[in-house]
């Protein structure tokens, strides 16, 4: 872990509950208590109705593969080629991620296939949510 060389997120006061969640193996989203809107990325108010009455909740951790590219020009610390994916969560929000437990090829990465969250500890402080096909590799 000490030699983790990929870019790391730096949590802010507004996003800390999300990163605390991933660290404890929980994917958290926010829901508006006034209009029930579920949203991401985190902020302490509802982007739909501007209410400050919002709550964190544990997301289902289920979704589908919404879109991706397979990057051949690696970012620092990455080995190309690797997919940069967008997951559509069951709760209706999109999230960027990497797909694990599956070949990084167009044949293996089928759009709309069911995926589930898994957690990858990067450092003592940071754990990243990653996603994998439901029921193992396609």
């Amino acid at each position, binding site marked *: 872990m000490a030699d983790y060389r990929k*870019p790391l997120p730096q949590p802010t006061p507004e996003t800390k509950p999300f990163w605390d969640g991933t660290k404890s193996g929980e994917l958290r989203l926010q829901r508006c208590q006034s209009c029930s809107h579920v949203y991401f990325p985190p902020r302490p108010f509802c982007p739909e109705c501007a209410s400050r009455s919002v709550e964190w909740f544990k997301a289902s951790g289920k979704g589908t593969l919404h879109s991706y*590219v397979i*990057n051949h020009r690696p970012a620092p610390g990455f080995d190309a080629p690797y997919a*940069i994916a967008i997951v559509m969560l069951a709760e209706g929000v*999109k999230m*960027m991620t990497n797909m694990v437990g599956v070949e990084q090829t167009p044949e293996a990465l089928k759009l709309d296939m069911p995926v589930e969250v898994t957690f990858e500890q990067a450092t003592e402080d940071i754990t990243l949510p990653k996603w994998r096909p439901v029921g193992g590799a396609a």
Partner: protein
Amino acid sequence: MKPGSVAVVGAAETTQMGVIPDMSVIQLHADAALNTLKDCGLTPKDIDGVATAGESPVAISHYLGIKPTWVDGTSVGGCSFMLHVRHAAAAINEGLCSTVLITHGESGRSRIGAGGWGAAAASLAGQFEAPYGTSGPPSSFTIPVLRYMKDYGVTEEQLAMVAVVQREWAGRNPRASFRDPITVEDVLNSRIIAYPFHLLECCLVTDGGGALIMTSADRAKDFPTKPIYIIGTGESVESPMVSQMYDFHHSTAFQISGKKAFAEAGITPKDVDHLMVYDAFAHLPWYGLEGLGFCKPGEGPAFIAEGNTRPGGKLPLNTNGGGLSYMHSGMYGMYALQESVRQLRGTAPAQVPGAKISVAQGVGGMFAAAGTIIMANERP
């Protein structure tokens, strides 16, 4: 804005285009500005408004010896110059200034006097995109396209056709970086950059600059150049992260910006003779054609593949060769505006006969922002 109340009287690019290792970023701005001042017979002392992106309007004003009464440093990526044109039109009409200089310069290839890349780790993109290995626009801007292609039944050959058609235009432009004809096979056989995008479906990375000078339509008739009137303008912003754009099938910012501009001009897409759509990557023209109402959702790919936008087609598109073949410094919007002006002046290398109305559509960031400028060579 009242359509036709403001005009572009000066327009020029840097003397050289492509690889310019002997000029820093600020000098590229200045080189384009000096060429533009010469184009319309002005000196820096005649300028009282300055707008720019990349550099600050403070740096540009001081470097050129301008003491402005109005500045605009709107910086929302490559379409910033479309927004500058819009803001300048409002400022001129409001009397905040009379003669505006808009500059762009970028050492995209040589990186002389240029800043760094990358999102701060505490920014939203730094937290929720960078950790997953995005490495600049080729692996971010391209993210929505597989979703679009699956739902609309679009083929990889149709994506390649965008690059093929634009190369046909570039072949007619002596200043274009790449001019040799290419085929769909050439595109699909070029190196994969970020699947499904191949090298030839990604923009160039070059050095260059451009500038515009605008004034009121009433003053414009006293200039040596043919006035090009601004008849419609629009702008909008969407998301700082491509992963959070509202819908991967279309750009909401394009739709809002385009709708505003067409309504202001009082025209429909059928009235347009010439179109520029900022093409950082080959899918951008699809989003432009559909976002502005030239095509129905999902019909852009076939529209291009069938030849409607190629030389001789019914809607000439990206006639300088575009970011894919002409040049792309990083913030390409200025070059789209330059080509619209050239087409309406009748001085473009690949001139569209009789072009009277041109639309320049810009994008900023990765679908983060949009600007639309509609120009005409007759005052409405």
